[in-house]
C-alpha cells in the first residue's frame, strides 16, 4: 500500500518540480512585465506543490528530506513525464504546456479531495484556490491567442498539435492503478484523463482551435518508469548546481 502512495506522490511532485523549474526559466524574459510576474508566480506555486508532496513523503514514509530528494537524486529515479521536461521553446508552446498540464493538475487534485489518504486530501483542499487561478490564467491566454491574429491562431494550433502526444504521457498508468483505485486513494490515470479531456475540450473550442483526433496520437510514455527525454538530465544538472557544490551545507 505504501509503495503505491509513494509512487503517486513522486509522480506528482516530480512533475511539479520540473515544470516549476522550466517555467521559472521565463522569469525576466516574459513577453511583458505583467505576464512575467504572473508566470513566475505560477512557476513558484508549482515548486510549492512539489515541496508539499515531498514533505508528505518525508513525514509519512520516511523518505529523505525535500532538498535531498529534489537536488540529489539520479535521473532514473525521477518519475516525471516527458511533457514537463521539454525546453521552454517559444511562448506559444510554454502557454500550451501550462494549459494542458495545469488542467491535469487541477483535475488530479479535485479527485484527491475525496482521497482516503488524508494528507493528500488536505493538500488538495489547501491549494484549490491557487490552482483555480492557474487554469484561469491558462484559459484566458489560450482563448485570446486562439482568437487573436492569423499568426497567433496558427501558432497555438501548432503548439496544441505538437504538445498533445506529450500531454497524453501524463496519464501513463503505473503498476499501482488497481491498488490506488480499490483503496480509494486515487481514481486512477484513466479516469483522470477522461476528466481532463472533458475540461479542456470546451476551452479549445472557445479558442477556435481544432482538437486533433486523439485516437491517432501516440502518447509519449516512459517518464513514469524512469525513462526520460534527453532534456531532463541537463535540467537536473543546472537545477542542482549550487546544491551539489557542498552537500553538507545547511541552508
Amino acid at each position: 500500500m505504501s509503495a503505491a502512495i509513494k509512487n503517486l506522490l513522486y509522480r506528482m511532485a516530480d512533475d511539479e518540480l520540473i515544470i516549476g523549474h522550466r517555467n521559472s526559466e521565463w522569469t525576466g524574459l516574459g513577453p511583458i512585465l505583467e505576464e512575467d510576474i504572473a508566470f513566475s508566480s505560477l512557476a513558484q506555486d508549482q515548486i510549492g506543490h512539489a515541496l508539499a508532496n515531498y514533505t508528505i513523503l518525508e513525514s509519512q514514509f520516511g523518505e529523505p528530506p525535500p532538498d535531498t530528494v529534489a537536488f540529489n537524486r539520479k535521473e532514473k529515479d525521477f518519475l516525471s513525464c516527458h511533457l514537463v521536461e521539454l525546453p521552454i521553446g517559444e511562448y506559444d508552446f510554454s502557454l500550451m504546456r501550462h494549459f494542458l498540464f495545469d488542467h491535469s493538475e487541477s483535475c488530479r487534485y479535485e479527485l484527491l479531495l475525496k482521497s482516503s489518504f488524508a494528507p493528500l486530501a488536505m493538500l488538495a483542499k489547501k491549494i484549490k484556490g491557487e490552482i483555480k487561478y492557474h487554469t484561469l490564467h491558462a484559459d484566458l491566454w489560450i482563448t485570446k491567442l486562439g482568437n487573436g491574429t492569423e499568426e497567433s491562431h496558427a501558432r497555438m494550433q501548432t503548439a496544441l498539435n505538437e504538445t498533445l502526444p506529450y500531454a497524453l504521457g501524463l496519464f501513463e498508468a503505473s503498476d499501482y492503478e488497481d491498488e490506488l483505485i480499490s483503496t480509494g486513494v486515487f481514481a486512477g490515470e484513466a479516469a483522470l484523463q477522461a476528466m481532463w479531456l472533458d475540461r479542456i475540450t470546451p476551452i479549445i473550442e472557445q479558442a477556435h482551435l481544432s482538437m486533433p483526433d486523439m485516437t491517432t496520437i501516440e502518447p509519449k510514455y516512459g517518464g513514469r518508469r524512469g525513462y526520460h527525454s534527453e532534456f531532463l538530465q541537463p535540467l537536473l544538472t543546472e537545477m542542482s548546481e549550487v546544491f551539489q557544490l557542498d552537500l553538507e551545507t545547511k541552508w
Partner: protein
Amino acid sequence: MINSIDPRIKRADLEGASGFGALAENENWIPFAVFHQDKRGERHEFVGTIHAPDPEMALLFAKEQYGRRKKTVNIWVVRSSDIFTFAHEDEDMFETVPEKKYREASGYPVRKYINKYLSEKDHE
C-alpha cells in the same frame, strides 16, 4: 557570448537578438487603474496601474501584481481613461485660506467650555 552567472542572460540570447521592431496594433496595451479590497464591506482602494489589452486580462494581471503580497478578497480594474479628473493646475481650488478656519473643526476650540461645564457639574 556574454559570460554571466545569471542563467537568464544566457537564455536571453542577446547577441542573437535582432533589435526591437515597431509596435503592431494591439501591442500598445491600455492602462488600467487597480482598486484593491482587503476585507468584504471595506472600500476598494486605488493601489496602482497595470497595462493589459482588455478588462479580463487586466484582472488576471492585477491579481498577481496587487493581490499576492497582502490579504485580498477582491479587485476592481477600471480603464484609466474612464477616470475623470481635475487638472493639476487647478490645485489652487483646494487651498483653504486661513480666514476659513470656521469651516474646520479646529476652528472651534471648545475644551474650555467643556471644562467649565464639568467643574460646575462637580460643584452641584
